[in-house]
Each structure stands twice: as structure tokens, then as C-alpha cells.
């Protein structure tokens, strides 16, 4: 059985491929719709975490929870209240980080 040899087949396939396409205004069209580049903002992450923590602390200020945690902290006896306050602060801080990462995307 006769078959096309490799060289002939490669030649055929190469010819089938029309090659690079002429620009014809394509690049200009793409440049017109290119969105503004968002520069990476490495400071955003710690700032977001800090702001989250600060806001939570301010929100907890009038509540007895924070006062109880402060008393525990001053007495050097960290208990459940301190753990809860820490967990809230950490949670809101993480939420802030998540938001910052989402913005970066």
C-alpha cells in the first residue's frame, strides 16, 4: 500500500496553514478597549486588616465584652471573653484581607 511520505505530508500541512494574519486595524481596536491597568497595591492587605480590626474594636468599645476582656488582660488571666474578642478581631481582620485580595484581582 502506497502512502504519502512524511516530507510530502508536512509540506501539505504547511501549505494548508495560511500563516500570520495581517493587522488591518485589529491592534488599534484592541488598544481602544484595553482596560486601565490596575497596579498591584501591596500596602492594601495590611491596611485592610488593620482597618477591620480597628472598626471592630470601636464597635465593641461600649459593650461589656471588651471591658471584661480588658479586665482579664490587665489581671493577666486571659479567659473565654478575651478569646471571643480576639476571635472577633481576627475574623473581621481576615474579612478585610479577603476584600483586599478580591480588589486586587
Amino acid at each position: 500500500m502506497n502512502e504519502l511520505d512524511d516530507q510530502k505530508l508536512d509540506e501539505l500541512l504547511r501549505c494548508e496553514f495560511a500563516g500570520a494574519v495581517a493587522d488591518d486595524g485589529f491592534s488599534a481596536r484592541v488598544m481602544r478597549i484595553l482596560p486601565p491597568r490596575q497596579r498591584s497595591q501591596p500596602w492594601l492587605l495590611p491596611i485592610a486588616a488593620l482597618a477591620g480590626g480597628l472598626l471592630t474594636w470601636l464597635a465593641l468599645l461600649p459593650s461589656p465584652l471588651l471591658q471584661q476582656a480588658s479586665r482579664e488582660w490587665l489581671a493577666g488571666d486571659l479567659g473565654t471573653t478575651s478569646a471571643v474578642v480576639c476571635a472577633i478581631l481576627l475574623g473581621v481582620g481576615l474579612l478585610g484581607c479577603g476584600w483586599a485580595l478580591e480588589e486586587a484581582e
Partner: protein
Amino acid sequence: MDDRDAQARIDAALVERAVRDGDARVFEILLRRHQGLVRAQLRRLLGNDPAMADDLAQETFVLAWRKLEQFRGDSRFGTWLHRIAHSCFLQYLRSKAGQTQQSAELDLAEIEMTGADNGSPALRLDLDAALRRLSHNQRAALLYSQLGLSHEEAALVLDMPLGSVKTHVARGKAKLRQLLQDWAPNNDRRDKR
């Protein structure tokens, strides 16, 4: 250092500048350098739908612009772009698959007949038909070989192991040879056409 290496170094330097300065004009140079082959790749993958190919090419370059800092220079910039373009194409196929089941088996190699003179039109039609009978991966692997990508680069674009690419190219060619045997030299059947 060959020409491809020199071009790759120029691309890498341009990417570095575009990322550092956020300068769209530098990206435009990259765009003009690569648009021709990316659009050709997508036209070839999509068949006779240059408008859709250009839409996907546009999407490819916008994505490349957004993700430019993710280009680490592990491969040539052109290869990286081909990979993004291939992903856009697959995504398009998936979205279209819901509408028409045959999309995945499409047209992948529905050839534009605007290419260079390739001998008999009948041979071109037969080659076209034969290419359609190859699997998706065989056609894509053959396409990227024709685009001048090495097997390693094709593996990157197709996101498959190097060995699989080589196998797809070899099996694709074997199948084409078999399907086009009527066109082999000294074949009596060819003379009857």
C-alpha cells in the same frame, strides 16, 4: 543565539517594561508583534469564522494585558499567548456545547482556503476532510507543530505531557497518511481521479 531566542528576549524585555511602567504603548508593541499568529491560530481552530476568531483574539490580548505580571518568562511570550488563546477557544467550545452538541467535534480544522497554492483543489478538499476525521487533540497538536512551536511548547499550550503531544502528532500523521493514500505517488487510484 538564533532568531527565535533573540525575539523571545525582546518580548521578555518589553513585558518587563510594560509591567513595571504599566505602559499600554509598550503592550501595543507586543500586540502588534503577535496578533498575526494568534489570530491565525484561532482562525484555524475555529474554521471559517474569522469574526469569532478575532473576538477570541481580542479576549486573549485583554486577558494577557490583565495578567501580564503572571508571565514569568519560563516559556516564550508567544507560547504564553497561544496558551491563553487555546484556553479562550476551549471556553468558547464549552459555552457553545450547550447550544450545539457537535461543537466539540467541529470544524476544528475546517481549513481556510486562502492559503498558499497547495496543488490540486481536490487534494486540499481531501486533506480538509481527512483533518476533520482526526481527534481534537491530534488536530490541535498538528496545528501547533505547523505554527512553528516545538513539541515542548505545544505541550505547554495544550496543557498535556510532552509524550502525549508526540503521540498525537505521530498518530495524527499516520491517520492522515492512511486517509490520503490515494494521493500517494505511483498510486493507481490517484490516476483514476
